[in-house]
Every structure is written in structure tokens, then in C-alpha cells.
């Protein structure tokens, strides 16, 4: 026992010395010089959380640091994003998994203390998930045009997973573009919204692909269109709203995107290191099979392109939120 204790204390001392050395030499090294914090602006369990943990896990192999996931939920991701925007001591080692909440949040909370575009460095968009316009299996409408014609005559209801979600805003965008009568019916999350759609209580929904994919396959829901710019490889026979074109639908292109951002002071060298590492992550089999399970597609934009995309999104949702009257004053 005594020898064990001795060995233990010796090992602890050795460890302490090693740590002290590693700290003193850290300054000379390249980024990262510390653990990287990946902030998830939502509670554990959602798509953002699961994706972040998968990415953190793979990213650790590519950069010379631990990647620690931290959940900071609140006010549709704006609490965590506001905190990131304030910067701070470890801003050069903090990244955040942003999602449509970033751009939509900026549209519906006008008193945000940050600029959703200028206050951040946009590192890499990781995945895009298209939304699917779905109707119940026994719905009389078999195409988007049939649906639009009917919705001009009578009131339609669409379910969504909460005010300001990409599902909600897609519905509002559809309503604004096609000038139809549609009422939003809110639910607490997609899990609660789905039975209302399957049971025919609501007429239509613009749900995320992974939520409804199996129900489309089993024939319980009919997919009328996908919201992405290109057809989805998972539903190749379903048209995009953009290609339908009529009733201003050529302007309807939206996906639920998930990408990494950081404080504007994030070093350029760090951004480059991260992009390089993330590109390796995005080529790995573990990542690709995960993306496939989500019914998603790997993100394509990074850096300035990513930033320009965000700027467009912010402008678009700003307009939709104003027209739909869901802005907080």
C-alpha cells in the first residue's frame, strides 16, 4: 500500500511538472493552444446537440486539442449567441454551432445586442437539411399547384414545431409568396406536431426531412415538394418548390443549415486550421453515414460565402417576420 501511495504521489508530481511545461511552451505553438469549447445554443437532445457531439468527437482527431461540448439553451439560441458576441478571454478557442435560429432569431427579436452578420466569423457550414412540404395520405391534394388553388379559396392550416422554427417560417414564407389563406398551428416540438398531421387535423406542414422521411416511405404522408434548391437524393421524384416556379415559388429556397461560427476576434490562422480540419471531418465515413441518417447533405459554403449566405437569410426572414406580424416590439 505504501509503495502504491508513493508511486501515486510521484506520478502526480510528474504529471504536474509535465503540465507546467506544456503550459510554458504553449505560447510558442500554433493554434490551438488550449481546449476548444463548442457551444450548443440548445438543450441536449436536439439535432443541433447530436450533430455537435458527433462533430466534436471527430474534430478531436484532426486538431491537437480536446473539443468540449457545452449546452447553453435560451430564447431560441439568442442567449448563447449573445454571449459569444460579447467575446471574452477564451473567445479565440470558442466556437458555436449555429442554425436557422441564428438568422430567424435576428428577425423576430429586434432588440438583440449583436449583429448576426458582422459580429462573427463564419467558419464552415456543416450540413443542410431540406424541409419537405407534406400532406396527410388521404389529403385531396396531389400537387403543390392543386394545393395553392384550393388555399386561395379556403383557409388551410399548417402545423409547426414552435414560433420562429424553420418549419414555422417556411410556412409563413409560403403563405406570403403564394398570397394564400393559411393559419399557423403551433406545437411544442415536431414530436407533438406530427400526430396532428398524420391524423389529418392540419392540412399541411413544412417539416424537416428526417422527421417525416419514414412516414413518406410508409405512405402515411404525401410529399408534394422539397424546399432545397436541388432535388433531394432521398426523394428524387419529388420536385423542388423552385422548379414549380408559379405563384412566386421560384423564390422559395430554404434549408435548415447547421454551421460553426466564432467571435469576430477569432484569429485568421485558427479559422484556417479549423476549416482544414473540418474538411477532413466532412470526408470521413463516420460523418457521411451520420449525415445520411439525418436525411441531410454535407454543407458546401465556408468563410465569406457562408457569411454572404447568412446575410441573405437575415434579410429574407426579416421581411417574412414583418409581413407575418411575428416580430416582437
Amino acid at each position, binding site marked *: 500500500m505504501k509503495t502504491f501511495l508513493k508511486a501515486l504521489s510521484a506520478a502526480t508530481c510528474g504529471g504536474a511538472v509535465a503540465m507546467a511545461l506544456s503550459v510554458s511552451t504553449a505560447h510558442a505553438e500554433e493554434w490551438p493552444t488550449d481546449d476548444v469549447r463548442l457551444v450548443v445554443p440548445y438543450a441536449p437532445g436536439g439535432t443541433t446537440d447530436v450533430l455537435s457531439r*458527433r462533430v466534436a468527437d471527430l474534430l478531436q482527431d484532426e486538431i491537437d486539442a480536446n473539443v468540449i461540448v457545452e449546452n447553453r439553451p435560451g430564447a431560441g439560441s439568442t442567449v448563447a449567441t449573445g454571449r459569444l458576441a460579447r467575446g471574452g478571454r477564451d473567445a479565440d478557442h470558442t466556437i458555436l454551432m449555429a442554425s436557422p435560429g441564428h438568422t430567424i432569431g435576428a428577425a423576430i427579436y429586434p432588440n438583440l445586442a449583436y449583429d448576426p452578420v458582422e459580429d462573427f466569423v463564419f467558419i464552415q457550414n456543416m450540413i443542410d437539411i431540406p424541409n419537405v412540404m407534406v400532406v396527410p395520405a388521404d389529403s385531396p391534394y396531389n400537387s403543390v399547384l392543386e394545393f395553392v388553388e384550393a388555399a386561395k379559396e379556403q383557409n388551410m392550416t399548417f402545423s409547426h414545431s414552435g414560433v420562429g422554427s424553420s418549419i414555422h417560417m417556411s410556412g409563413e414564407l409560403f403563405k406570403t409568396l403564394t398570397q394564400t389563406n393559411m393559419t399557423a398551428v403551433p406545437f411544442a416540438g415536431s414530436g407533438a406536431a406530427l400526430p396532428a398531421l398524420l391524423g389529418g387535423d392540419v392540412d399541411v406542414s413544412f417539416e424537416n426531412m428526417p422527421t417525416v422521411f419514414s412516414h413518406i416511405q410508409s405512405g402515411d404522408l404525401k410529399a408534394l415538394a422539397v424546399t432545397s434548391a436541388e432535388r433531394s437524393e432521398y426523394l428524387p421524384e419529388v420536385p423542388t418548390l423552385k422548379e414549380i416556379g408559379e405563384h412566386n415559388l421560384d423564390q422559395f429556397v430554404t434549408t435548415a443549415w447547421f454551421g460553426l461560427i466564432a467571435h469576430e476576434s477569432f484569429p485568421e490562422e485558427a479559422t484556417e486550421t479549423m476549416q482544414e480540419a473540418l474538411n477532413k471531418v466532412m470526408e470521413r465515413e463516420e460523418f457521411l453515414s451520420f449525415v445520411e441518417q439525418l436525411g441531410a447533405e454535407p454543407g458546401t459554403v465556408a468563410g465569406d460565402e457562408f457569411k454572404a449566405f447568412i446575410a441573405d437569410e437575415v434579410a429574407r426572414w426579416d421581411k417574412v417576420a414583418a409581413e407575418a406580424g411575428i416580430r416582437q416590439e
Partner: protein
Amino acid sequence: MENFTEVLQLFLATENFLAIAIGVVIGVTVGSIPGLTATMAVALALPFTFSMEPVAAILLLVGIYKGGMYGGSITAILIRTPGSPASACTLLDGYPMAQQGEAKKALKMALYSSVIADFISNIALIFFAAYLAKIALNFGAPEFFWLICFSLTIIISLASGSMIKGLIAALLGILLSLVGLDSVFGSQRLTFGNYNLMDSISFIPLLIGLFAIPEIIEFYRKKVVPHLTAKASGAGVSWAELKHSLKSIIRGSLIGVAIGAIPGTGATAAAFISYSDAKRRSPHPERFGKGEVEGVAASEAGNNGVAGATLIPLLSLGIPGDVITAIILGAFMVHGLTPGPLMFQENLTLIYALFLGIMLSSVILLFVGNAAIRYFSLIADIPKAILFPIVLMFCVYGAYAVNNDTFDVWLMLAFGLLGYVFNRTGIPAAPFLIGFILGPMFEDNLRRSLLIGSNDLSIFMRGPITWFFIALTVGSILLALYRFMTSRHKAKRRADDPGKGA
């Protein structure tokens, strides 16, 4: 069944047994720590399951879920701090029992009741999944609305003592539940522009503050070290006591199953409904809230009855009813499996292997729970002067851990003060919690129904399920009125004839 050997082959792997055991142990431990919920534990365990075999992966998560459901009751009983929201109701009778030196009895009853309810819930999952899922699909907003109306009428019985004080508590609960974003228009309600309040008031800081803090204040205000209640080990549950509570346990389990099978209600509501139902049927309802072992049994049966049943909509329809099942859905998908009707055709062997594992998890919960009780009940023997500072530390930590935010710590302390005021003025906490939990469900489903029906009220009477719950609601109100009248009649007779009464 020709595939039975295949099922057994899939199930009888060491990895599966280990996964269930480790899952239940993690669940009980995490569940018993205030602020750390089973939901968090399941989310954090998810990445570790990516590399496991599918059956073991799901069983690990289910084990954590079930263990966490029970674990929450341990600290609720011992230190009046619910480890998870669903165990808030267990505390109403569990803590008074611990104070009277019956901690072990309360813990054992909570365990037995949890295990029985869990078992019944599993049976429902295995044999009636397809049938219950069909009903769940017909359960839209108007049906939900009437279910909540009916629940509210049952809960009237919780307002023991002064009806006025009960109403004050319930309305205050509803008022506080309004804080946050409006669910239809997204406008801010009672947030005073504070971003921390936009997601509404966090339930866990509220619970911890409301129950644990007043005890601590009370202790230091009196400035005397109370005589130890001791005998923490005390007596366990006798066979007669278990038999006496068995009806309540079974009824509570069935309430849990019904609520679990419908997406979006939750274990906390099930526990309160089961508890109120047991109180209403009890020959001596006045003992509830003062350390009635049947109250602990009913509450735990309600929340554990939910656990197996939430897997019904998940497995048979692919619909997650709460956050935990949403995470489990994620685990299925990572392994290339999509829950839903197709899975019953394509992966039947796997489903049966899962069912076997889920049944086994009930048994393992019994053993792990018994071991946990042996060590945890020692807490009741710790002198309060030492115990309470530690409890306070856990309160602060637990409130912080929910959102990693100091705002919640302040919130917890504010509810601590409110709880203290409640204690001093005799305002009951249970109706307050009911208002806070059911108030938003009532509002959301009322508004949802009106939106779906374009403001046409006939949607509230659209089919057999609504008729059924309307009848129950009306019946329940009439019964309450009848009891009220007869008790008044009796009281009057007693007053007329003072020699006979008292």
C-alpha cells in the same frame, strides 16, 4: 414462433446485460442528483452508443431513462429536493415520512411501486402497442383539452384544508406559467424584456427552491439543532402495506400508461393525477400530505407507468413523445433503424430482443434500487447542521446545471422565499405546481383546437373520445358536488344535534 432462437441469440449477449445494468445504475445516480435529469444523462450517453451493437445501445439509454425515473424520488424523500421534476409529487408524503423516521419505508415503497408500474407499462408496450398507438393518433388538440379538464376536476381534491388558499396557490401557478413567449404569436408575456425569461420559468430551479430552501431557512431560523430523527434505516415496507397500496399502484400505473402513450404530456402530470386519484378514493384522505405511504406509492406508480408507454408511439409510429424518446429515436437512426410500422415488419427479431431487455430492466431496477436505498438512507442519519449546508450547495449547483446559467440560481432562491412564505401562511404547494404544469397545456390545447377548427366550437365535440372525456368531466364535477352537499348536510345535522357528533 420460429424466430425465437434468433431473438434469444440477439438478446443473450453479455454486452446487453452490461448495458442495462450500467444504464440503470447511471440513471438512479443521476436521477438522485438535483438538477441532473435523466434527459441530460441520456443525451450525454448517446455518443457512447454509436459504436455499440443496436440492441445494447438502445437498452443502455432505456436503462438510464428508467433508473432516472426512480432515482429522482430518493432525494425527494430524504432531503425534500426532487432529483427530477417527475418526483416532485413523491415528496409530498415521502418527506414527512422521512421526518417521522420512516425514510426506509418511503424509499422501499417508492421502489416497489416504481418496479410494479414499470412492469405494467412494459406489458402494455409489448402487447397493446399497435392498439394504443392508434388511439394516440386520434388524440388531437380537442381530446387533449378535455383530458386536461378532467384531470383538473380530479385535482380539486388536492386542495385540502382551505379552498381559498388552494385557489390562490393554483392561480399563482398559472400566472407564473404564463411567463415566456406566447405560443401562437411569439410575443413576450411577463418577461419584462429579460431574455432569460423568454423560454418561460425553468421548472427545476422552481422545484428545488420551492421545497428544499424553506426547510433550510426554517432550520436556521430556529437556531437549535433538532433531535435527530434517527432510525433512518427503520422498518421497510410490510407485505400488508404493499397489499393495501396495490390498488392505487395498479391504477397509477394505468394512468401512467395512458398518459405516456399520448405524445406530449409527461411523467410529472401523470404522477400528480395518480396521486390525486388515490387521495380521492382513500377512506382517510386527510392523511395524504402528512406521510401517507399510499401517497408515495401512487405518485411513483404514475411517473414510472409513463416510462415504458412513451416507447409505444416511438416504436409503432416513429413519434417521440418527449425529449428522452427523441434522443432514443436518434440512437435508432444512427444504427440505420427507423422506428415506425415498417420496423415491425423488417426488424421484428430486434424488437423482441429489445422487449426482453426492457422487461429485464425492471428486475435490474429492483436490485439496483435496493442497493441504493441501503446507502442513501444513511443520509437521514446525518445531523442536519452538517447535512443542510451540503444540501444548499446541491441546490445551487442543481439550479445552475440546468442551463449553465447563474440566472437560474437567483430564480431558485426567489422560489425558496416564495416556498417559505407558503409554509408560513399555510398555502399548499401542490395546487401551485398543478397550475404551473397543467395551465399551459390547457391554454395551448384550447387555442390549438380553435385554430384547427377555425374558431368553430363544434370541434370540442367531434368524436367518441371527446364525448367520453366530457362525460367523465361532468361526472367528476357532479360527484364532487354530491360529496360537498352530503358533508355539509352531515355537518349541519351534527350542529343541530351536538350530543351525537364530534
